[in-house]
């Protein structure tokens, strides 16, 4: 049984069908990418999975339970977490506080416990803080816990966002263009890091990515969207040689002769 199974999902905005009859599934422990030209509906599909948008038709089944009609906080609690295309950290909170917020689904202390200073509450906070520091080290931000998120360098912000997403111990991690705006060295680093997440933590990963080097380098399976529809699915090699994909990216004329340039 796949970890995530989207069955004939359709999402419309007025007359525009952003995601059309899309079926898509990820096996547990896989690294899967969704690619497609701008406006193909990739981020919309992410938003449907995470409950930001309610889907109009179809169903999304995660870990054996339907996620349809659930609110974003419920879906996060089911075990899906995500990062954003345009980094959306809590800018005026520290790096540690950002991670602690990400840990929300696993915290249980109440506000009354905080007022009365109950031991269980204090212990939980202590543990959470320790764990947050560990995560900070894990993503390579050691010692930057007290920095405000907005004053971190760009690359660090991306990493902090991943740390925040990891803090809920998700089963599935959705990464929306994790290498956008990075230089080749940072991109290579991030690519290795994503693999590490799967190999060491066993997290299933779903990527949206424009950088073909990243996509082809780490994905085991690629789904190509265009105008909200799935136009291809397969391994990196299959996708690179698929004429419909080339057409979507480069236009009809180019499709006949060109292939997608991919650095090996």
């Amino acid at each position, binding site marked *: 049984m796949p970890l995530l199974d989207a069955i004939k999902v359709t999402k419309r905005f007025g007359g525009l069908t952003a995601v059309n009859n899309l079926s898509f599934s990820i096996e547990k422990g896989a690294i899967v990418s969704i690619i497609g030209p701008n406006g193909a509906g990739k981020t919309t599909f992410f938003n449907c999975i995470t409950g930001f948008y309610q889907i109009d038709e179809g169903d999304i089944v995660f870990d054996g339970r339907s996620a349809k009609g659930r609110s974003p906080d419920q879906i996060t609690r089911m075990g899906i977490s995500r990062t954003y295309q345009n980094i959306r950290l809590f800018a005026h909170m520290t790096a540690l506080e950002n991670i602690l917020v990400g840990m929300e689904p696993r915290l249980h202390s109440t506000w009354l416990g905080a007022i009365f200073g109950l031991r269980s509450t204090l212990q939980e906070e202590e543990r959470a803080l320790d764990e947050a520091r560990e995560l900070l080290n894990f993503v390579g931000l050691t010692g930057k816990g007290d920095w405000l998120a907005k*004053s971190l360098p760009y690359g660090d912000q991306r990493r902090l966002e991943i740390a925040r997403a990891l803090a809920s111990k998700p089963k599935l991690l959705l990464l929306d263009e994790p290498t956008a705006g990075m230089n080749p060295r940072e991109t290579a680093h991030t690519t290795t890091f994503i693999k590490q997440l799967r190999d060491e933590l066993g997290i299933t990963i779903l990527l949206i990515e424009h950088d073909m080097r990243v996509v082809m380098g780490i994905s085991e399976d690629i789904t190509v969207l265009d105008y909200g529809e799935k136009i291809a699915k397969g391994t990196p090699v299959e996708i690179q040689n698929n004429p419909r994909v080339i057409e979507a990216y480069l236009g009809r004329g180019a499709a006949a002769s060109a292939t997608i340039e991919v650095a090996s």
Partner: protein
Amino acid sequence: MAQLDVRDAIRKGLLAGVIALGLSVIGMVEAFDQRDVITDVFSLGQLLLFAAPAVVGFLVVKGRDIRAYGPALISGALAGVFAAIPIFLLLMLTLIYPGLRAQLVNVSPTLIGILTFGSGQIVGGLLLTAVMGVLGLVGATTHVIPDRISDPLVLGVGWTLLIGVLSEVLLNILRPLLPRGVLRFLFGTKGITLVTAVILLVLITVGIAWWRAQGRERYQKRIAARSAVQVANARRTSLGAGLLLLLVLPFILGTYLTEVVDNVGLYVLMGLGLNIVVGFAGLLDLGYVAFFAIGAYMMGILTSQGDLGVGGISFWLALPICVATSTIAGIILGTPVLRMRGDYLAIVTLGFGEIIRVLATSDLLKPVIGGAQGILQIPKPEIFGFTILQPQHFYYVILASVFLALFISSRLRDSRLGRQWMSLREDEDVAEAMGIHLVKTKLLAFGIGAAFSGLAGAIFAARLSSIFPHSFNLLISINVLSLIIVGGMGSLPGVVVGALVLVGLPELLREFAEYRLLLYGALLIAMMLRKPDGLWPSPVRRRELKAEEQEKLMMQAEGLE
């Protein structure tokens, strides 16, 4: 190098003059003339009037950083003279057109007397121009003479004037302590006497000069030489002393001033509540007075011995019920606005505040809460057979409540809920995506915020013994919001500082009462320009400002390389 800039001096001078003219025409100068800063020599009105040329003389040189005598003094004097021109023109206008008062009500003979030193429009006008010119010169001079002389002198003048302005407070405190003859000598009839002023000026100036020259260094050396134990002891001692001071404050201040402090305390309580809603959770609530009203009315209904009282229970029994009712009201009013953000939320909550006020005056609820007549005969609280009667007694009830609210606020701020609120303020969508239950988190903010306000309202009702609907107007919500902004959003000490500045000061200077909103407006604009994070920003905001400074420094360093 810096040159004499005539146009700049004239422009700034005229601007200051227009401000001085404005303050005169709206009646502030005349109203403030009632209060003497230095007995029979110098009034608050004159201070207001003459601050303009002195300050502009200071600014006109500061802006250009002129260190040479000639250009500095000339531009200062020029700015001062031009600061007098708008008022001079007004004086001439009153000569040509004596009926001016029909249009400008506040241009009274008294005001003209103040502006002309009682010597007729033409002579007085010229005199005023000369005085303002000299003041502009004086303002400019501070830049030319060495800092080690000018700084203490400016501070000395400032402090002396401040003490003069607040002389009534001092008099109130010192009255029981000093014999009448000494007081008469020190304070005269109004303000402080000239002798006192001179003594103060000399003492403060010399004191500050000494401190700058030697004292600070010695002090810092001593601080640096302290051991960890000594530091801890010093901290404990100062904390204890502060606490002790708070406990004996009503005895020092006397009835009237304690009443002022009580008022400040109630605003602090409300401020702390609204700070949770606006400062922590970022939900802009403009109808906050509603919960204050609900707490007050609940206290009235439950304890009043008049016709409307239904409970007849004691203050202490009623208090938790009032708080609970306000909390529930906060949750009920919060529920429909859960989906709203920013401006929409502000407008809807504004409406709620008004609904409560209208309901309070309505005929519909008149049988229950008395309509415009309000609720009377609310008994004073009793504790162990002792009746809490005077402001000094209420002070302790309020102090305890404020401490409780401060404690709860600070615990919550540093807790998981505090983080949830902050993330909500930062980005509601992402907060939800992090697994935060928006409804619960928002309603907790509304509920706890309303609880503090309800507590304040309940105490307010018992303190006044009667409540009327006009006490619960929109202005209270605005006052509370303003004091949070002035103090620093989300900052707990900021709430206290904000309440002292916005509620305490105007109470001490009763002449301000009429111009309170003007003061708020001017203060808020000045704050937004100069200290956008408030007088006492919360630690995180402060850290952020520091980070920005560091960034700038780093950029500068890179630029140098």
